[in-house]
């Protein structure tokens, strides 16, 4: 079968997929009687033209970097972690318990503590599906889906019956103490020259970037990363090379769950300042799209997370300023996943056709 040049594979295929998703999105907007061009303008103006807009966009980007890295890491071990949604919510529980029950003297220590709590709880929630996959052969996709729903029910129970302060109506924990408030980027010396208004994005953004570098270093610069990738490419070859499958499945899933859980530092500690019901709000699933768009490379994930951050914030602007409902952003996300993930081969086939006339025919193969 014909193959595409490497640059086309890495750059062109995702771009064409995006373009197709954008065209269908435009048609959807047209069909409900609105103007796609005006919609795009509203999206860009609201998310990239003001400091405030950038604040929102980067805030969402931060969340999606975590969930995107979670999917990426598991994917390199050949595991499809679809349970980000549940792991994020459990991570939120870790953050809430760390912030509420430990008296932190300063936000920096609270950040470390909450991050560890989030990672531990997220990892713990991924541990059971991982163990069932490794030891009992249960399909990880199905078990992680089930665990998303079990997590949602568990959180509803905890927030309504256990952690809700007396006299409160809404299912949420008490507000975290003031010493756990993370600085927003407009409070960081130097950056306050760029962000003059109070913005949503907080120091967790740098934690997310650091995690992207860490995942890259782990996967391509360590022995464990090599083992994970080898296992993901061929389980039997890895087994033959003396790599312990149970160990790899457990380690990859625990780290994946920890990364997903850490997203809660951004939204629960950095924004809401209390744990809310359904705190993941779809970010776990968006992580799948981010990993796909980012071609399962941590740096690609950062770029793709930014794209989805833009879509998320732009979609919110649509809901505010136009007659297009905010749900449009879910449609766009669905289309992006469909074209970049499921219809990948279609895009490739089209491109191979287009490339065919330009390719040199090697002697003997024509």
């Amino acid at each position, binding site marked *: 079968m014909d193959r595409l040049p490497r640059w086309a594979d890495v750059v062109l295929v995702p771009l064409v997929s995006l373009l197709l998703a954008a065209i269908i999105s435009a048609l*959807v907007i047209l069909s409900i009687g609105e103007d796609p061009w005006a919609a795009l303008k509203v999206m860009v103006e609201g998310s990239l033209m003001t400091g405030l807009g950038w604040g929102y966009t980067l805030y969402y980007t931060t969340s999606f970097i975590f969930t995107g890295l979670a999917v990426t890491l598991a994917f390199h071990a050949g595991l499809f972690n679809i349970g980000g949604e549940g792991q994020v919510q459990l991570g939120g529980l870790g953050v809430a318990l760390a912030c509420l029950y430990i008296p932190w003297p300063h936000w920096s220590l609270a950040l470390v503590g909450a991050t560890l709590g989030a990672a531990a709880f997220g990892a713990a929630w991924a541990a059971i599906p991982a163990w069932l996959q490794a030891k009992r*052969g249960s399909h990880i996709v199905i078990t992680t889906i089930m665990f998303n729903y079990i997590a949602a029910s568990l959180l509803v129970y905890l927030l309504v019956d256990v952690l809700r302060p007396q006299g409160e109506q809404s299912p949420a924990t008490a507000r975290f103490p003031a010493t756990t408030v993370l600085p927003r980027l407009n409070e960081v010396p130097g950056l306050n020259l760029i962000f003059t208004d109070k913005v949503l994005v907080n120091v967790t953004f740098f934690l997310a970037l650091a995690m992207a570098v860490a995942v890259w270093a782990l996967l391509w610069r360590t022995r464990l990363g090599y083992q994970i990738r080898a296992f993901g490419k061929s389980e039997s070859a890895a087994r033959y090379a003396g790599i312990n499958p149970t160990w790899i499945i457990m380690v990859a899933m625990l780290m994946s769950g920890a990364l997903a859980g850490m997203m809660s530092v951004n939204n629960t500690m950095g924004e809401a300042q209390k744990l809310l019901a359904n705190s993941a709000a779809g970010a776990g699933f968006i992580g799948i799209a981010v990993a796909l768009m980012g071609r399962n490379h941590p740096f690609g994930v950062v770029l793709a997370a930014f794209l989805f951050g833009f879509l998320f914030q732009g979609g919110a602007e649509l809901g505010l300023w136009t007659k297009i409902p905010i749900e449009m952003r879910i*449609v766009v996300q669905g289309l992006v996943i*469909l074209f970049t993930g499921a219809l990948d081969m279609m895009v490739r086939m089209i491109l191979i056709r287009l490339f065919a006339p330009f390719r040199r025919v090697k002697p003997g193969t024509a």
Partner: protein
Amino acid sequence: MDYDTLLQLLASTVRLATPLILACIAGLYSERSGIFDIGLEAKMLVAAMCSGAVAYASGSAWVGLMAGIGGSMVFAAIHGVASITFRGNQLISGVALNFLASGITVLVAQSLFRQGGRTPPLSGDARFNPIDLPGADALQGVPILGPFYHEVVSGHSILVYAAFAVVVLTWWVLSRTRFGLRLRAVGENPAAVDTSGISVTGLRYAAVMITGVLCGLAGAYMATALQAGFGKEMTAGRGYIALAALIFAKWRPVAALWACLLFGFFQALALRPDVVEGVLHFKVPGPFLDALPYILTVLVLAGFVGKAIPPRAGGQPYVKER
């Protein structure tokens, strides 16, 4: 708990289990043919919106049902094209369609009716109303069985009876017909089916489209019988419960019926916390009952309660030998 309460609970179980049964059997066709489908939820949601909107516009539940099936089949076709023709990742296609359905249903309902993403309330012939089976009133005097027949068996909409008929039909198709045998074979060993000159692609498309039809029934039931109109995210995870039931039943039709009835019973119990507390003498948290289907399914998956072995070729695109 007295007998009347039990009957109420069982009647409610039947009503709540119906969309699960239809969606579960829908998933069964797809998965037995080797195509994973985690997008049952998407198809139900689209069908619910289409049937709610069209039933309102036409005033006929039957026209609404047709529209619901049509909408669901469009989504099934997309899944088919992505996972059969273009050999894409079936799980990712399912995730994408779930997103797409969740957004597009609200978008369309909002642009049509401007009621915050709902369709207008249905009444009269625009809904599937309860039908009384013959003799339900006459036999009510018979002790124990009479009230049971009157409350639990009779008095449901036609789609409830259709769901039970679908289970029987599916059992017959899978175990007694040539199509069923081939369908099961294509999910286990597509190469063997291909070698005997039968189209793997054709069979899988057929299965995926049957999934579309049945999810259409499930969604239409949600919007035109169980409730009166479509509301945002109204399927509320039922597609995933159906998927859980399918695994719980180990991909077998009659077992799927029982699994769905059991999970429907949990849903009915969750609506009546007073009854649960009255019987058990302690408070069971509602969320626990919501989570119970998933917990039980995980136990089955773990092999603690029997062993769930999926169709062997499930999830793998078939590449024809050249």
